[in-house]
């Protein structure tokens, strides 16, 4: 009997060792650019290689390795640090720390609170404090408390993203698409209207200040100027347009309401009352009544009913009904990269498109995918990136001149992709010091500025960019930086348990789904619902349902 057990145990051991060997053969996961240098310590760095690419990280790697070439972080066993970069497409929520061999991560769509609660991230409070001790560098006010969990920080904000409208400044000038002070159309040197901010001169002069002006301009482009107003990737039309609706909603509702979507704390918030939305002949197409309430955990569901959400849906509905999109790009085989390239080349091939519906990453994404290089090959100097001037179109935050929207002067946007830099919790203890040093290096004031110069976007925190750097950036990147400086980009952070323990429930894309439709694009385009009907559908919670779901958070 003992013999038999012994034989079986031996066989089992053999099987385990074979299985272990088979899995061990897989080794460190990730594709790195270079061979390991055994004389140095390796830090494995994962970078989401999407719209912002990896070039910015390669620049930092070189500088860091040079600066710490003679430093040992492991008591003299090795000297210097080798940064092993793993460019990949793993979203933050898909990262598997038990199989990933990386130590440091720069990722997007990170569900920060879920990871922190799971114990996935290393406490980097000291790093955050040291980064923020630099002159001119700080977290945004909402992040200071919102990123803390039990009084500790576990990540630093990475890039800041927002969806919206890109416009071709050169085309607007060439085709006289700017709005003149008298309401006619003119070029950039004409007598321009004051734009959405009502201030003249400022960056938005001549751009539509109201929904009425915006759609008047679209009509003018289409019928008189011979310009197609919009281009949108057919493959991603549903998702991109849903992001756009959220962006327009945020702009119309303003910063206080948009922040309340995460904090559940705001005073005197207007919401649309039940059964009050009626179709009419107004610019919006709908009339409605509002009431006001102070938002708390007990009535967060009212945030689903804000006028901005109806405004955003009506905006999209008008774009669809007005047939303002380039029809060929709406084919399901047109990717976002195709749409970007078609947009870049449209003016040069005399089939001009004025605006692109995309995110603030688009220009860098088009650059890293060589769209500008190909454009230059085709159209020589005219196609060169430095000869093109694009801009961020502010979202009109008033329906018409009579609209008394109290939030109408703030072009608010949501920082969409919850992007963070962090260190894994179970990093080899020998590497902790080096990893923290590297993270601090990435967030040195000068490297924050370099990041913006390379990618054309801001990191989602406060820091400075010199005038010289700014002048060397593209026209579009300058607009993105100005948007960052305006402070109107809302970060998805909160110190309210209701949000951070249920963050998936409050994802902006989840909250725009209604019944059989995940996206308003399909429902509105198919004529299944009007914007008003869809708006009523995305209220999602009644008072009782809200209480049922979140009673534990209602004091």
């Amino acid at each position, binding site marked *: 009997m003992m013999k038999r057990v012994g034989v079986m145990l031996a066989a089992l051991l053999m*099987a385990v060792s074979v*299985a272990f060997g088979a899995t061990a053969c897989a080794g460190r996961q990730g594709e790195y650019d270079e061979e390991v240098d055994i004389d140095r310590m390796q830090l494995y760095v994962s970078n989401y290689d999407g719209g912002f690419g990896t070039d910015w990280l390669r620049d930092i790697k070189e500088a860091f390795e040079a600066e710490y070439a003679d430093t040992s972080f492991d008591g003299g066993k090795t000297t210097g640090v080798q940064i092993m970069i793993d460019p990949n497409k793993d979203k933050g*929520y898909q990262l598997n720390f038990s199989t990933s061999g990386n130590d440091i991560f720069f990722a997007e769509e990170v569900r920060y609170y879920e990871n922190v609660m799971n114990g996935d991230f290393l406490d980097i409070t000291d790093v955050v404090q040291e980064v923020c001790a630099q002159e001119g560098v700080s977290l945004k006010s909402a992040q200071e408390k919102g990123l803390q969990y*039990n009084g500790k920080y576990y990540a630093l904000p990475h890039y800041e993203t927002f969806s919206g409208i890109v416009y071709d400044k050169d085309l607007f000038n060439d085709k006289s698409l700017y709005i003149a002070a008298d309401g006619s159309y003119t070029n950039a040197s004409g007598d321009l209207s004051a734009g959405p901010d009502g201030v003249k001169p400022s960056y938005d002069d001549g751009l539509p200040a109201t929904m009425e002006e915006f759609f008047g301009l679209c009509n003018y482009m289409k019928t008189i100027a011979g310009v197609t107003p919009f281009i949108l990737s057919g493959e991603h039309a549903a998702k991109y347009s849903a992001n756009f609706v959220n962006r327009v909603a945020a702009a119309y509702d303003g910063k206080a309401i948009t922040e309340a979507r995460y904090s559940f704390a705001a005073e005197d918030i207007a919401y649309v009352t039940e059964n009050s939305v009626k179709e009419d002949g107004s610019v919006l197409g709908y009339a409605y009544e509002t009431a006001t309430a102070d938002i708390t955990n007990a009535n967060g569901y009212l945030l689903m009913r804000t006028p901005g959400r109806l405004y955003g849906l009506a905006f999209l509905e008008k774009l669809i009904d007005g047939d303002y999109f380039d029809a060929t790009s709406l084919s*399901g085989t047109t990717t976002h990269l195709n749409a970007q390239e078609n947009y870049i080349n449209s003016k040069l091939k005399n089939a001009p498109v004025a605006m692109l519906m995309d995110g603030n990453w688009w220009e860098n994404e088009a650059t890293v995918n060589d769209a500008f290089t190909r454009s230059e090959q085709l159209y020589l100097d005219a196609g060169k990136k430095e000869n093109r001037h694009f801009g961020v179109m502010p979202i009109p935050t008033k329906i018409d001149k009579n609209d008394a929207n109290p939030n109408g002067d703030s072009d608010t946007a949501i920082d969409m992709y919850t992007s963070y830099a962090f260190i894994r919790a179970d990093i080899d203890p020998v590497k902790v010091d080096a990893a923290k040093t590297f993270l601090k290096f990435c967030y040195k004031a000068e490297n924050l500025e370099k990041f913006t110069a390379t990618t054309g976007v801001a990191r989602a925190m406060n820091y400075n960019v010199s005038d010289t750097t700014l002048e060397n950036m593209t026209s579009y990147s300058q607009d993105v930086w100005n948007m960052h400086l305006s402070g109107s980009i809302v970060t998805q952070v909160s110190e309210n348990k209701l949000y951070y323990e249920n963050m998936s429930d409050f994802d902006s894309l989840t909250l725009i789904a209604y*019944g059989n439709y995940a996206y308003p694009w399909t429902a509105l385009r*198919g004529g299944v619902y009007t914007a008003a009907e869809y708006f009523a559908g995305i209220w999602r919670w009644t008072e009782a349902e809200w209480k049922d779901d979140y009673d534990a958070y209602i004091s």
Partner: protein
Amino acid sequence: MEAIKKKKTLATFNRKRKIFYISLIALPVLQFCVFYLGVHINSILLAFKSYTLTDEANGIYSYIFAGFGNFAEVFQNFAKESYLVNAIWNSVLSFLVGWIGFFGSLLFSYYIMKGWRLSKLFQLFLFLPSIVSEIVVVTLFKYFTENNIPAFIVAVGGGTIEGFMFSSDLGVRLAAILFYTVWIGFGTNILIFNGTMSGVSDSVLEAAKLDGVRPLREFVSIVLPMTYPMIVTMAVVSVANLFTNQMYLFSFYGASAERQLYTIGYYLFLNTQEAGNSGLSEYPYLAAFGIVVSAVTIPLTVAFRKALNQIGKRFE
């Protein structure tokens, strides 16, 4: 003299043979225990747990017993979310339409087996999508339905039409996907049926031919009964896949398919994928959802298999 045949057991093996035998089966048994039994038992247990804050001072969350709470949530969601009910219908629709492909592929297999006109060409065209990578076939189909067909209609003087896969009419999208499901299903089924039919004895077919049996009779009375066990296996597998079938939605739309097109299989896959590795709180609900659909599928599969076996007895 009656030779007594001793059944071979582990005890009858000598030591070396024992070691060889155990070494041979240990790995698959271990793999089965860990990756099949372990995973399934864990999934079943997970359905009765919730991911909850257990150590408030240190902010630590862990799984605790939650009774039937997750199952209640599943049924509440079915009552609340119309697209989930719709997903059941889409799963059933895909299953039923799959049967058209199933019968079609039986007929095509027979056609190919007989070596009738163009059968080699049919074989090539029907096998090709099964041999080429799925994502390539999906991309080709997408280009064909989004660009080529609309362009062709314009070229022959028709009006401008939308592509099918991204049509604003979700009914058109569904029809295009179902067409794809049937078409792509042909390849795999034919590959298997053709292999099985080639095992039908030539002498039987020759004898039938001499008796003046016409092709239809030959198909119904000889080929079908002789390939019936394989047909049963394939049919039972298709029933078992009723609620795991994604209808190729992820291949066509990634995570962005419209809800009206969802099948239960796609819903489960999407939610598991989107829960990702950080969404530990989502897994118990998904495990409960899986058990609920299994509770429907298992008796259905068993009953279906029994019914088919009864029919099979008639052939005998």
